């Protein structure tokens, strides 16, 4: 398909197209990560967000007030993540560990425990990325085709 010349600079047009596609990709992976994220208080799930260069992330409640993530310096990247301190432990897992502290157990309430059983196999970010990888590539291709034709 031939495309009508609009007298706009193709580089400028393409530069506008990339953030649009990255925002779609970020939304899709973020949605999947929120689906997969284990929920106790909901803070981790609410804090998951994405950021583009030049745009601040916007985590949802019940994320804390400081739960924004950094943003990429390159306009060709989208960052998806959280700054909640225990997010890494949930993503990568932990071995059982000494805790000696009160812990809120879902369905039970607060209990004092000496040893936490550890966290394993609850990866939500990498899993979401792998599930949505093909769809993300398709979204990018569709965005280019919509503007530039097949």
């Amino acid at each position, binding site marked *: 398909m031939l495309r009508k010349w609009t007298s706009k600079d193709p580089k400028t047009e393409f530069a506008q197209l990339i953030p649009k596609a990255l925002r779609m990709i970020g939304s899709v992976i973020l949605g999947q990560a929120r689906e997969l994220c284990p929920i106790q208080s909901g803070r981790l799930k609410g804090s998951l967000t994405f950021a583009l260069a030049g745009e601040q992330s916007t985590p949802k409640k019940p994320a804390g007030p400081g739960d924004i993530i950094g943003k990429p310096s390159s306009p060709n990247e989208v960052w998806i993540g959280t700054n909640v301190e225990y997010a*890494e*432990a949930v993503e*990568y*897992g*932990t*071995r*059982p*560990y*000494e*805790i000696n502290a009160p812990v809120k157990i879902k369905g039970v309430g607060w209990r004092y425990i000496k040893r*936490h059983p*550890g966290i*394993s*196999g609850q*990866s939500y970010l*990498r*899993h979401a990325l*792998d*599930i949505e*990888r093909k769809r993300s590539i398709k979204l990018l291709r569709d965005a280019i085709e919509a503007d530039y034709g097949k």
Partner: protein
Amino acid sequence: MASNSIEEAFRYKLVNTAAITNLVAAAKIFWLEAIPKTAFPYLTYFVVSDPHAPMSFDHTDSGQVRMQVNIFDDNKSRALSIAHVVRDALDQVSGAIDGVTFAAMNCKGIRVLKQMDDNAYQATFDTMIQYYDV
């Protein structure tokens, strides 16, 4: 008996690689979690994602799986050096492994995480495995 899942085949590779078992005994290689009070160092592995076959056990499929490998130790540099040896032993491995065909295995970067009670370190890396015939 041949492996029935990608995790079984992966375990077969781990426990039958001398470079790995010289550093971590086969009895200290676990799926998902170590048994309580296992002495350091020990190794755990599990499937993070398998988009083509979400039920990685009891499922016949082919596809690409992301496997996470963890080495736990109370010595940070030893955990890291073991992780390097394990990664080097697994990276770019291909061919039939206990009845499963590994088309390619590409290992990612290693990161070291401090455990929550400050007594141990977790050197972790992912490996992307393309496989057939499970």
